[in-house]
């Protein structure tokens, strides 16, 4: 019989719900995730926006491509900074020949005019896009672009113009969001075990238990959103951490696309979630330290388009990047202490709340306490010879048959006094 070596060696990823610390981190990530209901809406909304634009005189036959960029393109969307339930989604509208030769502000103004009567709460022209504000707090950024001919992967120019009048600062900016998403996908291949469990929990959170039973192979057909790798989960946690740390800042903050680039670099199969967050943080810290050592600003460009500079608007100073490195050190140190088992659970909760937000951390811990307590009351837990407790959701149910180091539970009732 032939053995398919590739299948044997394919990284399946670690189930983030196997390890207690990873479990609470994964529950936090679930809480800040774009929920299934809004994911479905997002997709239908951007298709509706395209149809609306194509029905206008200005844009008829002038939309070559309409595709997600940023977090939506790499399945890393989380709630917007300062919120637990608002989501920013980004679409690139690649425009046709009529728009070539127009100034950036003209293109943005045309787009704004075409969307002016769109049935949303507000339509707002920004420096690089037009934003649609929906009643359920979803924000959809539509960024107009012009394809740069003779380049790869939809490399394009996007508009940059503050308005309301033309300015010498108006310009076109190179970008290749599509190529970057492809690069990220190549760097973070599907880790089936991790993705399946996370997807099941994602649907479970939304009360879609029946769909949660779907095999991971069926998932793309049923729902094209799936966090495919531990690196993406770590990226979401890092973005959430940044959002919390910079909640009160009024200026620019470390950009998501830059963090995504580092997640792509740091990606490595079969790592625990906490280890991946630490690895990702340390990778960024090292690059910032290196730049600061020579008094330079951190420079990160799109790996498939050198002119697409992810750090073009942040950092503005060495001290700004050093501040971010300091925050990342705090995150990495706290997670390392948790991994070593050196921290009391209540201190751990205080730190997690400070890192990721009170509400989502409290909700994650409550969820775990209820599930684990129920498992213990039903004697569903197992034990390792090293003195660890395994809960049934960790996929270790069949383990006693093959692993003599695991013992089963015997029912008992906690008694005693309150002191």
């Amino acid at each position: 019989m032939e053995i398919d070596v590739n299948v044997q060696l394919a990284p399946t990823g670690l189930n983030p719900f196997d390890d207690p610390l990873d479990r609470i981190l994964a529950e936090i990530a679930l809480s800040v995730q774009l929920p299934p209901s809004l994911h479905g809406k997002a997709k239908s909304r951007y298709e509706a926006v395209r149809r609306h634009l194509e029905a206008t005189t200005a844009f008829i036959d002038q939309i070559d491509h309409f595709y997600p960029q940023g977090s939506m393109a790499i399945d890393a969307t989380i709630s917007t900074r300062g919120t637990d339930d608002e989501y920013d989604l980004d679409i690139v509208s690649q425009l046709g020949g009529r728009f070539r030769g127009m100034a950036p502000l003209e293109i943005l103004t045309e787009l704004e005019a075409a969307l002016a009567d769109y049935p949303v709460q507000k339509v707002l022209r920004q420096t690089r896009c037009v934003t649609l504000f929906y009643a359920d707090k979803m924000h959809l950024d539509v960024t107009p672009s012009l394809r740069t001919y003779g380049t790869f992967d939809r490399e394009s120019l996007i508009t940059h113009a503050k308005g309301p009048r033309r300015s010498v600062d108006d310009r076109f900016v190179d970008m290749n969001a599509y190529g970057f998403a492809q690069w990220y996908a190549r760097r973070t291949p599907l880790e089936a075990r991790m993705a399946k469990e996370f997807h099941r929990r994602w649907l479970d959170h939304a009360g879609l238990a029946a769909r949660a039973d779907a095999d991971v192979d069926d998932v793309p057909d049923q729902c094209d959103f799936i966090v495919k790798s531990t690196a993406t989960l770590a990226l979401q946690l890092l973005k959430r951490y940044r959002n919390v740390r910079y909640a009160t800042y009024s200026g620019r903050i470390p950009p998501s696309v830059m963090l995504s680039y580092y997640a792509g670099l740091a990606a490595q199969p079969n790592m625990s979630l906490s280890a991946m967050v630490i690895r990702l943080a340390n990778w960024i810290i090292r690059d910032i330290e290196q730049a600061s050592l020579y008094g330079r600003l951190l420079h990160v460009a799109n790996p498939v388009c050198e002119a697409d500079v992810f750090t073009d608007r942040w950092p503005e100073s060495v001290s700004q990047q050093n501040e971010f490195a300091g925050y990342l050190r705090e995150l990495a140190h706290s997670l390392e202490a948790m991994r070593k088992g050196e921290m009391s659970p209540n201190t751990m909760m205080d730190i997690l709340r400070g890192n990721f937000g009170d509400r989502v951390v409290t909700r994650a811990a409550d969820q775990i306490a209820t599930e684990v307590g129920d498992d213990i009351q039903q004697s569903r837990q197992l034990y390792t010879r090293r003195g660890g407790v395994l809960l049934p959701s960790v996929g270790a149910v069949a383990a006693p048959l093959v692993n003599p180091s695991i013992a089963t539970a015997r029912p008992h009732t906690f008694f005693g006094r309150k002191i």
Partner: protein
Amino acid sequence: MAAILSIDEQIAAMKKAWPRFSARRIDRRAQSARWLGSVRPQYRSYSLEIRYRLGSFPEVRVLSPELIRLPGNSEGELPHVYPPAEDPTLCLFDPRENEWTAALTIASTTVPWALDWLTCYELWLMTGRWTGGGRHAGMESAEATEITQ
């Protein structure tokens, strides 16, 4: 009725199941022993001591780190323990339910139950809720059931 286990049988069972525990102060005449071991049920590592003398219930203490109290908590400052407050021992089973007898091994009862207790204790510290069920002394069974649900 199952035979009562000797201290040597208890020691052998502990050695086989829990290599991180070691037996100390073995007294075969008194049929007693003390085990020390380290565990990490979920988030934190703990050093445990188990004392046992045939004819008594096994006693489990957390030697380090010191158990944290939550003043004002509805479950008490520290739930499901035996006094004294300054040297609490874990209460792992209901004596009325015959969940433990001297015919059972400490290795298959007391140690895993202590791991359960520590797991619930950690979650209690994290959420303020004791979700592992159980009954405090003086509480009627129906009342206990309400709390565990």
